[in-house]
């Protein structure tokens, strides 16, 4: 009031740009270090319903061997081919499966998780209604 009475305005102190950029840099560092850009996918596993009377007949069993070849049980244990081959499963292989019946993938015990997921991906790409993981095949004595 006294200053106004004396005829000059008090100077408004502006925030210094250096202080502002310090804070913004700290915020930037925080978000750079804590952010994560990973995209996660998911494969759902549901327990097999053994109580269903005709579950065995409806399900289409596909065995994934240690050499990464696929055996389709309903096709007289027909070999589909190696992992590299079945990544491009085509229309010919699509006919081997009934699109309405679920496929159960049964890998051998020594098959890696990555190969199981790749096989599930390839079988799902065929357009079958449901592709499930059926647990590892017990090793042959």
């Amino acid at each position, binding site marked *: 009031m006294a200053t106004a009475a004396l005829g000059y305005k008090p100077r408004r102190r502006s925030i210094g740009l250096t202080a*502002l*950029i310090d804070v913004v840099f700290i915020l930037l560092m925080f978000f750079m270090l804590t952010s994560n850009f990973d995209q*996660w996918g998911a494969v759902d596993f*549901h327990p097999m319903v053994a109580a269903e009377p005709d579950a065995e007949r409806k399900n289409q069993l596909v065995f994934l061997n240690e050499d990464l070849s696929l055996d389709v049980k309903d096709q007289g244990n027909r070999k589909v081919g190696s992992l590299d081959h079945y990544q491009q499963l085509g229309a010919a292989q699509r006919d081997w499966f009934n699109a309405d019946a679920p496929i159960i993938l049964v890998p051998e015990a020594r098959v890696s*998780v990555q190969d199981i997921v790749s096989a599930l991906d390839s079988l799902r790409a065929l357009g079958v209604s449901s592709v499930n993981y059926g647990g590892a095949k017990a090793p042959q004595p």
Partner: protein
Amino acid sequence: MITERKRKSLDESLIPLINIVFLLLIFFLIAGQISHQQNQRIRAPESARENAAAHPEWMLEMASDRGLRLNGKRIDLEQLPAQLAQINSVADQRISVKVDRALLAEDLDKLLGVLRDSGVLSVTLLTKATVQ
């Protein structure tokens, strides 16, 4: 001593820098997502499918050395049923499992067997989505 004029020109030269830093800040704010610290040693299997798993309430991790962690806390496979028994209505819970891609089907089966015996009905295997 910095004169008023010099200080003003220094401030002005900072403006483009602040603009860029602000843009970067906005990018990380919008594009990034802050999540729990994940176990970086686990290399999740790659999958073409992208189901965008939501942040799971229960996360079970198995590293390539078969070490197990439930929500980041190290446990043994033998202790897992007791830990799961403490979860309220475990059958209704969706448990996310993150396993190393190099693990074998027999390792995955052991884990899924324990979960099944503990009454878990829904298990989601987390995969790293790949761009096709």
